[in-house]
């Protein structure tokens, strides 16, 4: 198999682009896709301060590497989630990445600073772990960006993430979430600007980028996420993609081009009436925001071992499906 660009030996074939690439031209392809995403959606401008939400996984480390390569002033932030060895290894990967490149990485530890961890939060609230995990991460990255005066938060959501969330939102007709499933979430009072520069790259591509760049990312999957609905949607989309390359891209980008604006009024309406949390000041629909309620409920509890929390299973009261990210 030869590189589509230079005819040298290819190391990866991308059927959705009907192309094969050698290492040099694959890395260039990835950079081009990120530049195009940033430009097409007006994500950010050179000179702006960027806070990258870093997990230690392939997407966030690839994103940080790409943004630095492209000349952005990008710092990272990693949150210690307390998910046993998985969290320790993930944070270690992020720290090593930053140290090797001389980049600034901000660290927050849920247990150390807020008195809880994700397994304990899941056990106490009897909710799926991804619920308290996602909410905690969103709250803390928003707070860090606003407190630190960053212009924009960049997250590592890739094409597979967005297509899977879109599938979930369509299957359950979560019209409010459909209205804000955009590559850019504009800055609003209490919320920083958020962008997803990897939306044009599939996760097979971000993983390959890391391998070719020598980025030592956390390969193991989160033990709390095993079997969750998001993974099932991804597996279903991969089946379709294998038979019909390019389907995921068309599904997501045609949604943006032809349908997303139809749902924006619902998303906008849901944002009305937000008031500052009486505890922390973050925007909320009630008196106290979900994060502060969680801290109040689970902070200081004895840690629940990861092994005692069943991953990916809904427990207790049902919640809305397929929250947009």
């Amino acid at each position, binding site marked *: 198999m030869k590189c589509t660009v230079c005819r040298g030996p290819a190391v990866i074939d991308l059927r959705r682009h009907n192309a094969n690439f050698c290492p040099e031209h694959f890395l260039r392809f990835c950079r081009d896709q990120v530049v195009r995403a940033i430009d097409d959606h007006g994500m950010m401008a050179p000179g702006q301060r960027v806070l990258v939400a870093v997990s230690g996984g392939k997407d966030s480390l690839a994103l940080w590497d790409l943004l630095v390569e492209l000349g952005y002033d990008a710092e990272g932030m990693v949150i210690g989630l307390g998910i046993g060895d998985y969290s320790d290894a993930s944070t270690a990967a992020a720290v090593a990445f930053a140290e090797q490149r001389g980049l600034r990485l901000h660290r927050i530890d849920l247990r150390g600073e807020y008195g809880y961890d994700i397994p304990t939060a899941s056990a106490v609230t009897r909710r799926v772990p991804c619920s308290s995990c996602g909410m905690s*991460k969103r709250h803390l990255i928003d707070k860090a960006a606003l407190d630190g005066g960053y212009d924009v938060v960049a997250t590592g959501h890739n094409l597979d993430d967005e297509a899977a969330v879109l599938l979930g939102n369509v299957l359950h007709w979560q019209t409010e979430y459909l209205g804000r499933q955009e590559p850019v979430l504009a800055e609003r009072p209490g919320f920083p600007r958020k962008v997803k520069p990897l939306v044009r790259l599939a996760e097979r591509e971000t993983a390959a980028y890391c391998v*070719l760049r020598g980025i030592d990312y956390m*390969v193991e999957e989160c033990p709390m996420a095993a079997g969750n609905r998001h993974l099932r949607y991804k597996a279903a989309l991969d089946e379709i993609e294998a038979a019909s390359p390019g389907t995921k891209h068309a599904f997501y980008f045609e949604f943006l081009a032809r349908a997303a604006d139809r749902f924006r009024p619902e998303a906008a309406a849901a944002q009305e009436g937000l008031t500052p949390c009486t505890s922390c000041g973050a925007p909320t629909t009630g008196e106290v925001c979900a994060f502060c309620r969680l801290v109040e409920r689970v902070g200081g509890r004895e840690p629940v071992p990861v092994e005692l929390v069943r991953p990916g299973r809904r427990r207790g009261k049902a919640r809305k499906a397929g929250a947009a990210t």
Partner: protein
Amino acid sequence: MHVVLRNPRRELDLAGPMSVAKLLGRLELNRESVLVIRGDTLVPGDAVLADEDEVEIRPVISGGLA
């Protein structure tokens, strides 16, 4: 060839030569969901794996929602 699979980790030995595409088919793995790494280098679907190769099949799907 010696094949290492991840998440969960498994190891198996298979006779070569065999193409990457055939290996994935034999293991019933979707090529959209994995990378195949020989030594420390990525290999495409038509690469032929030899009897003595060390091969990692690395899943690329991650399931957390930020």
